[in-house]
């Protein structure tokens, strides 16, 4: 794990490479380092970390979304990078508002991000620019809304049984 | 009525029905099935004529191998439906020609002077059409046709392989 100083060093390198506004901030919590990156710069930052000369993070383990609802910007996409040789993890986070939820896709860098980015799109409505096949993955294709956002109601889905199918007009649409 | 006659008429009806089905059905898959029915009826007729080995060969070779090839090819190229008869003179001439041929053949058969043609044939021994008897005849008297037939089979097999092979070079020029 990069410690707090190491994280600052990485952040400085990323800033140096991609410009000052690329890195929004850093976060070091419970021994875990997370780099806060601007949405537009996230692909470049991850590409930089992947091909870092000294300390490459060559694997992308997880991509997941998050909704910090009352806070703004509320939506976030997390990337968990892994350096297998050094057994080191680094989180990359990018936050954006719900209205302009667009992030460049990293599928070309890490093909494994394919399904995970689709899941984030499915659940949070974050659009990944450059994703080859951005469709819903877990919810039905014609589903409306993004169920994992915090303002999406819990338990709002009526369950269809044979005894109540008449109470659900046009359920078959 | 003798059992033999019942069997004959049943088999004859099957044979003619199958033959008509081959010609009249539009979907080639059903045509193939009609021919299978026709072949089975013919095998029954062969049995009536005491040619049991031929009947078995008919089933094994024709129904079991040749028609399977047909089924495969029809499944491969798909059922291409077409109209029967169709446009043009040939479509109308065909049945007329066939009818004329039929009349002529019937005159030839029924009006034939052959004395044995209207008989049941001589009494034959039990092993008349048995594999042993046919095989003996085939290897002793008709060895050259037998060998020629096997050579023909070989040529046909090679020819089929050559025909069905993929030739990438030529494919492009034909488009």
């Amino acid at each position, binding site marked *: 794990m990069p410690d707090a100083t190491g994280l600052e060093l990485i952040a400085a390198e990323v800033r140096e490479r991609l410009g000052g506004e690329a890195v929004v901030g850093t976060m070091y919590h419970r021994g875990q380092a997370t780099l806060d990156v601007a949405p537009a710069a996230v692909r470049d930052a991850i590409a930089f970390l992947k091909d870092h000369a000294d300390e490459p993070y060559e694997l992308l383990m997880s991509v997941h979304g998050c909704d910090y609802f009352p806070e703004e910007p509320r939506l976030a996409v997390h990337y968990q990078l892994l350096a297998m040789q050094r057994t080191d993890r680094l989180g990359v986070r990018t936050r954006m508002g719900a209205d302009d939820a667009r992030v460049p896709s990293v599928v070309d860098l890490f093909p494994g991000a394919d399904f995970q980015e689709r899941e984030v799109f499915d659940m949070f409505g974050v659009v990944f620019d450059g994703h080859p096949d951005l469709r819903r993955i877990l919810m039905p294709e014609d589903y409306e809304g993004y169920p994992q956002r915090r303002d999406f109601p819990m338990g709002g889905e009526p369950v269809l049984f044979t005894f109540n199918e008449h109470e659900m007009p046009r359920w078959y649409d | 009525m003798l059992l033999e006659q019942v069997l004959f008429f049943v088999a004859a009806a099957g044979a003619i029905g199958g033959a008509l089905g081959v010609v009249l059905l539009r979907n080639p898959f059903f045509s193939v099935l009609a021919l299978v029915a026709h072949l089975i009826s013919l095998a029954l007729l062969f049995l009536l004529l005491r040619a*049991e*080995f031929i009947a078995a060969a008919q089933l094994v070779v024709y129904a079991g191998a040749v028609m399977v090839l047909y089924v495969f090819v029809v499944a491969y190229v798909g059922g291409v439906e077409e109209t029967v008869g169709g446009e043009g003179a040939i479509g109308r001439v065909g049945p007329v020609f066939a009818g004329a041929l039929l009349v002529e053949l019937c005159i030839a058969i029924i009006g034939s002077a052959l004395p044995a043609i209207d008989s049941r044939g001589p009494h034959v021994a039990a092993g008349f059409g048995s594999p042993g008897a046919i095989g003996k005849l085939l290897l002793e008297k008709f060895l050259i046709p037998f060998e020629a037939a096997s050579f023909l089979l070989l040529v046909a097999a090679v020819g089929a392989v050559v025909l069905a092979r993929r030739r990438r070079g030529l494919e492009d020029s034909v488009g």
Partner: protein
Amino acid sequence: MTRLPLASVSFVESTGVQIVKAVVIFAFVLVVVPMILLLERKLLGRFQARLGPNRVGPYGLLQPLADVLKLLSKERFTPSTAVPWMMAMAPAISIFTAVVTLAIIPFGDVRRHGLFGASYGLYGIDVSIGILWAFAFGALAFYGLMLGGWASGSKYSFLGAMRSAAQLISYEVSLGLSLVGVVITAGSLSLTQIVNSQDHIWYVVPQFVGFCIFMVAAFAETNRPPFDLPEADAEIVAGYNTEFGGMRFGSFFMAEYINMVAIAGIATAMFLGGWHGPGPGWLDPIWVLVKMFGFIVLFIWIRATLPRLRYDQLMAFGWKILLPLATVNALVTAILVAT
């Protein structure tokens, strides 16, 4: 009583006797298939460290009855893409060709069984074409599977039908050639004569290679594991009988088991000396049944043991190993017999 005007048979019986025999064979099928079904389920249970059916009746003996009742009570459905009359016909063809093959299996010699002063052959019919009879109807059995798969209008069924067709064709050649050695040695195609000529030695000894080829090809011809590709449940759901339910499926199912019995009978007659065995003459049919039973247990045993082959491996094995081996076997036998 007139005689059937059909092909000549070496021992001719009256039509009435033939009808009785036909009824007996059919009854035999109806009795033996549920028994094999139960045997298979019980044996599989034992092979798999479990009990097998034991709820219906004492020791689960009525399980086949329950199975049949369940199948009978099932809804008969037809996919909208199917050809209904063909779907109805296909299981019938399968059953028919399977039962007909049973007719030539000899359970005993003709001379030794007298009843009411006449003598009867303990077989359905002893045709001079003998084993070719089985092949003729085996060839027709193809249409049961093919029509079933094609008429279902389902892609899985179609895949299964194509698989079964390819498999039946490929292995029928080996099956036939493996028996050529026996036929040459016995000098006859008739099953009774072949059994009779095994007086001194069963053909499984001189024709061991042929026997092995026959067994392998027989597994493939009956679609039993490890050659159950036409109905490989893990791959193509249930192959050609995917869309069949109720008694139509039951018919396919039954046909498979009758085929198993028929193949076991042919193997018994061709290789294991048919009714030959120690003991008095009336034991003959028992011996045949015991030998067939052994084969059926082998079928079940193999099913519990072996995984399934892959399609290309199946084809390669059939054409590249089994067929040349069978050909060489037939040639060598022919040369040995001729000299």
